[in-house]
């Protein structure tokens, strides 16, 4: 069996001593009883010596087995282990660990944690070594021994000293965490903001390489700086005396401690309208002056806050031995449902505006069309009258008034017969006029008109009622 500096040679020494003792005893037995077994009258059969030698061997074995049993019994209770684990522990503590593969006991550390399939004596934080630590490329560990911190180990394969335990594991991989920061705005409204942060243990070299040649890729993708690992491991915060998650590690400290505090302290300086204010943008797009009091706040650009937070977080993280890659903020939203409802109502009102405007515009257009028709009718009336009266004008003599009236009525009749739309417009007026003339001439009705009265078009005004 090969040995190295950690593997104890004591088993070989003890085995050798026991063997020597056994052989010495056997030789002494032979020498001492030689006269008694070989004479013809010997009363001791030679096989008795063999039996004594075997008995001595058994007795030695019993002694050794007894001691090992005592040690196992003690270790079982002292370390709170199973019988089998206690035996393994005794074996490894007394004889050292094997140097030939498979190298056992082995505690694997990867993905920022000790793997639960490791041997019990190693990972259960009860005993520790002797054994091996296999630290993956993504992790680093701080070990402790006999109540003191012992070593900081980066990725690699190590021999664990007796009673050397994993005290803490640091995940070297980039970390991303999401956080919801709840806060009160300056106007006393509960709000929240979701944030994301990406960070990593600081160290040199993790971004220094370039893949210019495939052969140049570094063996270790993540940085490892023992001093920073030690700093991170010893900077934890204890939140309570007991309970799960009572210890706040470097990641939680950065996210739930620094980022949460910084973000809240920043956001709480603003009112709700600073973060999300449709009213401001609505008024701004209209170029209008708001009559409401107080005037709407100009919403802050969240990207500006994000940049400031990121800068500050980078500074804080550097002091702690962490590199912050980025901080991203989500929108600030109110906790209160009433706020969202209000925003919705506002949005609805804003969206309704063009609909209302369109309806009104269509209404106006319809009336405008009617007005235009009216104008056209007037033009036609004047033009028709003009053509009738131009002949009278050419005579340059006095024109009988009755003739003018007759011409007017003739025009009206012509228009009425030609176009029902015109009839609608003109008929009423003509009727009124005829009534007047008839009233003048007292029962003389030279221009009788049809008695039927068409329905009034919508929007037209009854002249009788106006009078």
């Amino acid at each position, binding site marked *: 069996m090969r040995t190295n500096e950690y593997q104890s040679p004591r088993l070989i020494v003890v085995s050798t001593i026991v063997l020597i003792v056994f052989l010495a005893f056997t030789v*002494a037995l032979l020498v001492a*009883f030689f006269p*008694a077994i070989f004479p013809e009258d010997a009363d001791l059969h030679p096989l*008795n010596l063999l*039996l004594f030698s075997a008995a001595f061997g058994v*007795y030695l074995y019993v002694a050794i087995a*007894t*001691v090992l049993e*005592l040690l196992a*019994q003690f270790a079982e*209770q*002292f370390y709170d282990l199973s019988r089998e684990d206690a035996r393994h*522990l005794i074996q490894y*503590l007394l004889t050292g660990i094997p140097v030939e593969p498979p190298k056992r006991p082995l505690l694997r550390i990867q993905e920022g944690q000790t793997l639960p399939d490791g041997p019990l004596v190693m990972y259960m934080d009860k005993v520790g070594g002797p054994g091996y630590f296999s630290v993956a490329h993504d992790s680093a560990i701080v070990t402790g021994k*006999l109540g*003191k*911190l012992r070593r900081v180990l980066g990725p690699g394969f190590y021999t664990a000293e*007796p009673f050397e335990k994993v005290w803490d594991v640091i995940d070297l991989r980039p970390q991303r965490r999401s956080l919801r920061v709840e806060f009160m705005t*300056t106007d006393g*409204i509960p709000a929240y903001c979701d944030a994301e942060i990406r960070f990593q243990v600081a160290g040199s070299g993790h971004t220094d390489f370039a893949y210019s040649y495939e052969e140049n890729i570094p063996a270790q993708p993540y940085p490892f700086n023992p*001093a920073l690992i*030690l700093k991170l491991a010893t900077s934890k*915060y*204890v939140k309570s005396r*007991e309970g799960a998650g009572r*210890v706040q590690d470097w990641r939680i400290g950065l996210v739930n401690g620094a980022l949460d505090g910084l973000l*809240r302290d920043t956001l709480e*300086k603003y009112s709700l309208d600073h973060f999300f204010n449709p009213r401001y943008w609505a*008024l701004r797009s209209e170029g209008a002056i*708001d009559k*409401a009091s*107080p005037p*709407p706040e100009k919403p802050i650009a969240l990207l500006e806050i994000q940049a400031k937070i990121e800068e500050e977080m980078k500074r804080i993280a550097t002091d702690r031995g962490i590199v912050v890659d980025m901080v991203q903020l989500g929108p600030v939203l109110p906790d*209160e449902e*009433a*706020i969202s409802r209000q925003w919705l109502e506002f949005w609805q*009102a*804003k969206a309704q*505006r063009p609909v209302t405007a369109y309806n*009104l515009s269509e209404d*106006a257009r319809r009336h405008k069309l*009617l*007005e235009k028709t*009216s104008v056209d009718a*007037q033009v036609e*009336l*004047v*033009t028709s009258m003009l053509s009738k*009266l131009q002949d*009278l*004008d050419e005579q340059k003599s006095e*024109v009988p*008034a*009755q003739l003018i*009236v007759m011409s007017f009525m003739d025009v009206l009749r012509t228009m009425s017969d030609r176009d029902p739309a015109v009839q609608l417009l003109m008929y009423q007026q003509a009727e*009124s006029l005829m009534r*007047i*003339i008839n009233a*003048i001439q007292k029962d003389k009705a030279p221009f009788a008109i049809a008695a039927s009265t068409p329905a009034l078009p919508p*929007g037209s005004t009854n002249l009788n009622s106006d009078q």
Partner: protein
Amino acid sequence: MLVRFIILVGYVAAFSALRAYLRDHPPHFEGKHIYEFERLGQALVRMWGLLLWPLPGLMWIGTMPIPALIIAILSFLIPLDIFLVFFAIAGVLGLPSKSLIDKFSSWLPAVFSILFTLLILLTLVRYAFPFWQFMVFLAFVTIPPLLAIILVMWAAPNIIPATPDEPRRALRLLQQFAGFFTTFPKPSWIVEDGEVKTRIKGNPFLGVGPGWLMTEPENLVVLKGGTDIKRVVGPGMLFTEATESPYQVIDLRNQIRVARIDARTQDGIEVNLPISSLFRTDPGYKTINMESLANQDPWPYRNQRDIYQIVFYEEVDPTGKTPLEAHQVRPWDDIPLKAAINRVKQVIPEYSLEQLYSLVPGSGTVDPASGKIIPETGNLTRSTIGAAVRETVKAAVEPLGFQILGGGVGNKIVPTNPDVVKQRVETWKASWMSKVMDWETDAQIQNLKDLSRIRSDARVELLSQILQKTSMRLEDKENAGRYVAHHLLENLLHLARNSQVKELLPESALPTLTQLQELTKGE
């Protein structure tokens, strides 16, 4: 020979059976006092019972001219002597007092046993036997027990952790080990996750110390005696003295404690707010770094006096506790938070609810346009309160041995009455409502304007005027026809002069109508 073979086989069988029995019945401390000789008996049987049996020695009967009884007695006594000496060294019979008499008393069984063995050996002078054969017999009964003792003395310190510089390390570890098999063990404790866990239950008050204690790298332990506080130990491994047992564990790491409390503002609104305190025991001038790691320095703390003060500053506060718990002290790590709570409750009434949420007046740059503090430059009232609280807590607890790292008023200050938040939301909504109503009013006004414009239809107005004016002139009935014609033309002219109509008429329209009107004017 056959008998000897049967004895050997019987011994092996007995060994297997007894080992199985002892394995299934490990030493168990019942919690009651066990007298010294009972301890000795338990330890003998449990540890060396398999080696004490004289069976192997009995095989030697008949090999030498020595009586079988003497061989049997020597086969039993010689291993017993060895084991009794071992127990005397291991302190299995150790008494609480360290007087010479007590020390001698603990050796008495071994002394008596050895004397008895010597007496037996002296009787052998009466017999003639081969000396070397007897010596081989002695080696047969002596070497295995001796080997067992040597193995135990070598192995025990290897399986029990102990710092190399511990005084009388090997002896103490041996005592710890042997004590376990007396069924009256020496206690052992380990601190895990900040709690003392008993690994081997013992009773330190019955005078069976020392015990064994190991802390985590970040813990200290205060040890108490029967009625007094003994010392502060750790971090690391140590042996406790007789009557010593752990009293309290102190975690040297950074601590954070958070609590929510209710307080009343200046304007009488009750608010619920979180407060936090970040602290640790004062580490003094030492820090943890690679150098301290290389030197194997323990986790730093300033001095034991700090720890002592912190532990015995703990208060009994029955508030909110059951009668059974009312006598219990508030733990040491609640002290800074308790100080902070008291201070916050004093400070909050100095502010109104509005102020609690706002920036401290005069704390930043004022925007000339709005007259308000530019948010980025101002300080939160909450932060100001936090700083004030922190200073008070520092002044109160740092002299005890704490180091205050931070703390203050956290997120979020919530009125306990939800109506207060609702009211604030309503206030906020008011400004929004005004705008929405403004829009609606604007739309209505516009609508009315449009309708009113349409109603002023020019044609209708014009015809109305025609009829009105015509009616007015009908009083002169002789010229009624002329008037009608004249005003008909007059109104046609009026129509033709309408800008909208005029654009659509020929240029001659107006002159013609004017001329006709002149013709109908008459006298």
